């Protein structure tokens, strides 16, 4: 978009920064993702001091700063805490709008999991409905090894 000020052309310089990254998942997160991949199971960590159960798992408790070593399995189903139907397009997300993003409180967990909701008409999604993980057949140790959550 060109702007002009009196007779002066105002220029813009187009460029792009494209930087590859490789992010370390860490041993705690890696164990969680490998359980998704190999056993289709969702594991969490539990704080020894305040009993908070974290999904995704944490090595340190957000609330009391304790080191966490204990693992507990949580269910692959739970309650949809809240959601939105995304209707705008962005190249950053796999899939075309409209699609549904939800926050799911899995049975046995104390923190929500951010994920996609599918397999349901958009006007039938409700806060409080129960949903279950749908796993990919081919899994690679990635949060999208769960393709989405579907209502049950």
């Amino acid at each position, binding site marked *: 978009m060109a702007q002009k000020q009196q007779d002066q052309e105002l220029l813009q310089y187009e460029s792009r920064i494209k930087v590859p990254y490789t992010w370390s998942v860490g041993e705690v997160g890696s164990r969680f993702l490998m359980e998704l991949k190999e056993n289709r199971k969702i594991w969490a960590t539990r704080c020894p001091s305040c009993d908070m159960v974290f999904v*995704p798992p944490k090595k340190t408790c*957000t609330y009391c700063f304790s080191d966490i070593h204990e693992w507990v399995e949580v269910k692959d189903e739970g309650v949809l*805490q809240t959601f*939105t*139907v995304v209707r705008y397009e962005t190249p950053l*997300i796999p899939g075309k709008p409209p699609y549904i993003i939800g*926050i799911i409180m899995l049975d046995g967990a104390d923190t*929500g999991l951010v994920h996609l909701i599918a397999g349901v008409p958009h006007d039938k999604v409700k806060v409080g409905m129960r949903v279950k993980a749908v796993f990919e057949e081919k899994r690679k140790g990635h949060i*999208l090894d769960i393709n989405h959550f579907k209502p049950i």
Partner: protein
Amino acid sequence: MAKEKTAIVATGQTHHRSSRLDVNGIELIHEAVTRCLEDGELTIDDIDAVVIGNMDHFEGINYVDTWSIDGSGAFMKPIIKVTTGGTTGSTVGHCGYHLVASGMFDKVLAIGWEKNSESDTTAAITTAFDPIWDRLVFAGAISGLAVEAMAYMVKYGATEKDAARVAVRDRKHATNNPYAQLRKEVSIEDVMNSPMLSDPIKLLDVCPRTDGACAVVFASEQYAEKICDRPAWIHGISAKHPYNYLGDYDWEDRLPSMQMASKELYAKAGIKEPLKEIDVMELYLPYSCAGLSWIEALGLCGPGQAPKLLWDGVTDMGGELPINPSGGVIATNCIGATALLRISEAAVQVMGRGGKRQVPDVNTALASGFGGCFWSDVTLLKSTKPK
């Protein structure tokens, strides 16, 4: 504890626009700084230290502190850059306050700025989310706000129309502010009929993208009243930056970080009934529904009662507690400057320099900042010196 009583003694801002191709980032900063120095009848030689902030990745410049010295005037002065996402501007303000209140410096220039037009805002904001757990399914700012609005509306029975009332108020107020970007009124129908972006948020419920900058001078007691006949004294600040993964947020409640921050601030400042005791608020409300649930978090009314407050006009100009006389964030959002603009506008109200947007007889003003994964900053300013 503060060693030095500290006040805001001068403010300046640009005339905000969706894009300012006539200036680069440095020159944009310079406009706000120059206007701020003029407001305090100061020169750059009066400034002891500078704090500056903007959003990471928005302009793609790393060392903004040194890169910008022709704009900030920090050549051969102490300068630090701070950035905390949406709260960058309030963090910049709080750092300016800390540097003076600690007794380290007497006059500190705090600057927030953004050239939103220079990059893809959604892409840049996405870098604020955890790359492994949140980023792949939760890009950008709108979906996070949308799930919050959804949870509030379902739990408390508020409607999209109630939320629209907030946008209508802020856009109306913006017509009084010569610096605001969007200075055209909108109606409830306009908001309701605007395109749905991410349920329940529509285009006219959310803030625009803005090129703009803001600058503020904090001064110690020794200088404050010499520079300004009615300084805006800082009576307390509070910052609560609690969560890291989006799923950790308490969706059932209303902005817990704001509840904690305001409670702490009111205790520090001895405020028991904020609705009665505070004369004006400048709140970082990036989308309309925040103007409902977050004022409940601020203790202005009980859970689910905000819509009534809005429809009764309590928060309009002329109401018991006007919110966002400037038009707020829905009218102007140069992100790194946005939360500093809230502090600056609150100071302008205390100083009585608001022109058409001035609320009469302001003695106490509150400013808030909001960031990324639901964290909050608050600042309380008064016309009287702290004890």
